[in-house]
């Protein structure tokens, strides 16, 4: 079905006259039609390819066969046990990254949750998806989506300020980091402006679509790929801080 739609759009492009090529209408149609499909395809295929590539760099991890686990189980390895009470939840949290940088982690959590759910459950998007494929996900109320977007933008602002004002962030920040942040935030910012019809709606909505498509294309090929790498790096590849039993190694 994708191919079919894309095919039609391309035929449409082919039959257009050159003079029309750079008008707003043309770009609008292009961004609304073929570019959406192209960028989604690039995003999916690119992400799969990069995931496969990443996994191909790793291999199944084997535990050192020379460890005698039976002997370890039989006797206490070091001195006698202390019998301390189990540490409370607060004490456990204190040692984790959530305890060390709670604000950053919570903001980051909100940021990423909003980033994922807003586009999928936005009413306007779902109407378009329904138009295109005759099926759509459930939608949030417009007010709720609006609220989430504000939260998202606030989180993004927090990140931006952090990068600008924190010495430790400045020490490792490059222009690229700002670009990535911009690519991520742009669709939401333009979408927000478009919803409230601030500035020229037509231009803003075109920018919104282009920004969204740019982000989709960017996902597999920029640092934004960390959204996949996170799960591979923390759950599959074994390291000091693996969550669960990592089974692969570099």
């Amino acid at each position, binding site marked *: 079905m994708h191919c079919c739609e894309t095919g039609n759009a391309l035929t449409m492009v082919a039959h257009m006259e050159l003079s029309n090529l750079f008008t707003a209408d043309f770009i609008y149609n292009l961004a609304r039609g073929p570019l959406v499909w192209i960028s989604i395809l690039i995003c999916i295929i690119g992400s799969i390819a990069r995931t496969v590539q990443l996994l191909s760099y790793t291999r199944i991890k084997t535990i050192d066969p020379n*460890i*005698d*686990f039976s002997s370890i189980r039989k006797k206490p*390895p*070091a001195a006698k046990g202390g019998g301390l009470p189990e540490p409370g939840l607060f004490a456990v949290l204190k040692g984790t990254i959530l305890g060390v940088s709670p604000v950053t982690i919570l903001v980051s959590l909100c940021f990423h949750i909003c980033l994922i759910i807003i586009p999928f459950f936005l009413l306007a998007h779902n109407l378009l998806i329904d138009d295109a494929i005759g099926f759509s996900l459930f939608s949030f109320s417009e007010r709720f989506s609006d609220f989430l977007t504000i939260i998202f933008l606030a989180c993004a602002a927090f990140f931006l300020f952090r990068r600008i004002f924190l010495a430790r962030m400045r020490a490792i920040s490059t222009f690229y980091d700002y670009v990535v942040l911009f690519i991520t935030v742009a669709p939401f910012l333009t979408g927000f402006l478009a919803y409230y019809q601030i500035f020229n709606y037509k231009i803003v909505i075109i920018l919104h679509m282009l920004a969204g498509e740019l982000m989709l294309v960017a996902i597999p090929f920029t640092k934004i790929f960390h959204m996949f790498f996170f799960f591979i790096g923390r759950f599959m590849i074994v390291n000091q801080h693996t969550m669960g*039993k990592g089974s692969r190694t570099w």
Partner: protein
Amino acid sequence: MVKGKRKPLEEIRAALAPYNKVLVTGCGGCVSVCLAGGQKEVNLLMDDLKMLFKQANTPKHLKGYTVERQCNRQFLAELDELAPQAECLVSMACGAGVQYLAERFPNMPVFPAINTIAIGVDREIGIYEEKCRACGECVLAYTGGICPVTRCAKCLFNGPCGGTNKGMCEISNDIPCAWYDIYNRLKDQKRLGDILKIQTPMEWRNQTQRTVIQEGYEKRYAGR
């Protein structure tokens, strides 16, 4: 950290005599800090050996490579390519490093170039002093932070023997008596009560090989 001292050159030379291609592996960890087995010492040892073999008219192909720590599998992996090219390996790591290296290349002869001396401290630049024998059952709490296992020649747990000699150990006038020091330190801290109690026989825990699994990692290795 672990303290070591290089073996006599003659001993190393004799061990290498039958081999033509030798890889001298250094360790960037503890033995590097105590100037016994780091990259610099690898270079020195190779220079010395080269000269010896040249003099004896038996030149050999010597290569040196220093890894960050020979007690770590990840760092040892760096030798995977280089090691099989040699006929034998010389390890300038502590005993732990030598064994781990030998375990990684089980078909290769591995010779130690270091005598592992102690777990110790940097008393002065170039002066290292043993401080711990890793007995596995630390008693420092009641001995004023002075280890009777390491410092007392007779490993006494209940006070100085009859041989104390003006605060020195009976085995040498140059060695301070551990218990004399323990007594004085606890006296100053008004904690003599700690050594008035009879300390029951030590439960030695260094008589079998010991392995530690960090609590946080127990789950990861559970069921193996």
